[in-house]
């Protein structure tokens, strides 16, 4: 009897035990569920957007929140971008823009906003999300620009917000080479006003120098004003054509590279060339361990090349500099383009962190796609490519000439030809290691409208080679190789009327 009741009670206990357990689990579950539910009701998505401040020339990356189909940005981001600071009072947040002389007061949970003492109403109210204050993005996009008198443009497809000066003020500004391809966001800096001043001053200086140089070039080569205008028009038409030929890899349109385009301005015999001694002035280029400066080697070799060419042929040679002076990179190609030079040769001396590196190498421009057409990244090839025997190897299968907004792309074949000829001659005559023909995205080559190469005549970072480069005889030999290559190229071009393989 005792055992039976004992069993009974234990069963009962078990049941109660189970019930209690279930009850507890239920409570725990409810507790968890309750913590989840409000979270999902307040669901929102986050997106990264780019702010391009073209007035201060700054870029920012910030977060855009989308809650219930309304877009918000945080008040701190708003203050940061427009250079303001925050003051909080209970439910009000004031953003003070000292330099703009504006105070904006936001009221959480309300659509009211005070601009100074003036009250305006937003489309939707300000929110607090995850303990941070957010304001409707529509306020920035649509209203804020008017209030502080700047132009604010929202580019939805690119997730980019652009800040610009209002039109009348824009035209006054001197235009620097603007970034079209891809703008970087980078941390904001203080003291940017000073930099702007310095930049503008140097721009003015450059403009003046430019004018002087233009005068010189004109006098030197007796270029007539009408001819120049006609050329400009031609090149504009050419640019338009080349833009139309741009290939979008994904669309598989026709290939851009048309080497026998009759519209090319660079037709005819090689009668005028540009030699560009690299670096100069405040930019010494590479410096060897015993103090040999690249800029001096470049100038000496270049001068000698000019002498040799002008003596041995009736080719006229223009140099981008004849003295130890600093010339900006784009100015060099501009000069060559301005006089409609038939060839462009930039002379440099090399260096590397490895002292053992030595030799002679020649570069041409590598074809590069613009950001828009280069979605198929794996097929994009920019950088250094090597060809075993440049003159003979004309296989361009690996090079996709996708973009045509780099003028030099039209002359790649000729550039490779010239590079190949030079490298062959140097290999034979100079008793120096040949590092081959390479291509790279060189600034000085990219805007030239004629076959263009950059030659690195030896390494100043290599002690043995540095000594050789100090020797005038060696530099004389280098100059001979370069002039021979130019003359050989000219003859080749002459022989086969129009350039054929």
């Amino acid at each position, binding site marked *: 009897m005792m055992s039976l009741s004992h069993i009974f009670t234990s069963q009962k206990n078990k049941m109660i*035990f189970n019930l209690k*357990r279930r009850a*507890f*689990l239920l409570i*725990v579950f409810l*507790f*968890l569920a309750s913590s989840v539910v409000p979270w999902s009701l307040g669901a929102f998505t986050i997106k*990264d957007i*780019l702010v391009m401040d073209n007035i201060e020339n700054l870029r920012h*990356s910030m977060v855009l929140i989308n809650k219930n189909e309304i877009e918000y940005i945080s008040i701190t981001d708003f203050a940061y971008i427009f250079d303001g600071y925050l003051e909080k009072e209970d439910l009000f947040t004031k953003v003070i823009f000292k330099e703009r002389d504006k105070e904006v007061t936001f009221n959480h949970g309300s659509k009211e906003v005070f601009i100074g003492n003036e009250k305006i109403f937003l489309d939707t109210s300000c929110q607090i999300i*995850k303990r941070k204050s957010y304001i409707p993005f529509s306020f920035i996009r649509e209203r804020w620009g008017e209030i502080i008198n700047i132009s604010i443009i929202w580019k939805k497809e690119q997730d980019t917000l652009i800040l610009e000066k209002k039109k009348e003020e824009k035209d006054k500004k001197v235009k620097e*080479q603007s*970034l079209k*391809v*891809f703008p*970087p*966001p*980078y*941390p904001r*800096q203080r003291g940017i006003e000073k930099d702007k001043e310095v930049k503008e001053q140097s721009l003015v200086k450059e403009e003046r120098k430019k004018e002087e140089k233009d005068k010189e070039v004109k006098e030197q080569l007796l270029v007539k004003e009408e001819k120049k205008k006609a050329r400009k028009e031609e090149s504009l038409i050419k640019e338009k054509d080349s833009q139309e030929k741009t290939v979008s890899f994904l669309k598989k349109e026709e290939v851009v590279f048309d080497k026998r385009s009759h519209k090319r301005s660079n037709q005819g015999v090689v009668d005028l060339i540009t030699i560009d001694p*690299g*670096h100069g002035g405040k*930019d010494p*280029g*590479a410096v060897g361990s015993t103090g040999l400066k*690249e800029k001096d080697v470049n100038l000496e070799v270049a001068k000698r090349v000019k002498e040799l060419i002008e003596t041995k042929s009736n080719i006229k040679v223009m140099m981008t500099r004849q003295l130890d002076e600093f010339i900006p*990179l784009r100015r060099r190609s501009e000069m060559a383009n301005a006089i409609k030079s038939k060839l462009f040769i930039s002379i*440099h*001396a*090399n*260096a*590397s*962190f*490895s002292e*053992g*590196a*030595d030799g002679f*190498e020649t570069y041409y421009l590598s074809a*590069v796609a613009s950001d828009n057409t280069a979605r198929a*990244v794996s097929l*994009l*090839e*920019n*950088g*250094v*490519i*090597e060809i075993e025997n440049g003159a003979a190897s004309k296989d361009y299968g690996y090079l996709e000439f996708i973009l045509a907004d780099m003028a030099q792309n039209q002359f790649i074949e000729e550039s490779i030809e010239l590079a190949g000829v030079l490298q062959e001659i140097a290999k034979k005559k100079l*008793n*120096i*290691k*040949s*590092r081959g023909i390479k291509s*790279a*995205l*060189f*600034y*000085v080559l990219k805007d030239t409208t004629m076959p263009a190469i950059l030659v*690195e005549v030896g390494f*100043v*970072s290599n002690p043995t080679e540095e000594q050789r480069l100090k020797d005038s005889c060696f530099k004389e030999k280098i100059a001979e190789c370069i002039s021979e290559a130019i003359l050989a190229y000219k003859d080749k071009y002459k022989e086969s009327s129009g350039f054929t393989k």
Partner: protein
Amino acid sequence: MVIVSVSIGFTYLYLRHKEMPFLDKMAISSFFEEEEVKVRLYFSSFDASCLALEERKIKKCEDKIEQAKLMIKELIKGPLANNLKPTLPLNCQIKEVFSHKETIFVDFDQNFVEEHCKGSCGEILTIYSIVNTLLDNLNSYKKVQFLVEGKEIETLAGHIFLQQPLFKEKRLIKVETKRGK
């Protein structure tokens, strides 16, 4: 029993906690030891004709940006192998690394430019050792944009155009071959 269900509840909360991205995970991860990860670093070959690969174990970072910063610091330290050469000046520093969509931005200090060996060869290897190292190890990025002191620069040493982001250059990475005269 109470203890059991309460502890079940807490374990459940803990697991949910891990899934929530914006809650602080630092407290939890410090319970575990510092993990290491193998990265592929690209240095210069002996004759500076191409990039050569060296694998190294470095601290693992959850944040890809931090990982990128560490990799660049390793590149600055230089190669361990004695047939490889460094591509960055020893006393330069990486100030910031950040990203936007597929592009990773690397912001160096002024020494990156001033202490550089200059020359086309040196410049190409410097640029592409960084580009290839970052893009090879961090697959979600496709391009690298260089900055110095927070600003764009035209070139590093007067040669390569840096106002545009750069893609990986596979052709530079190859087995070192000897070039005859």
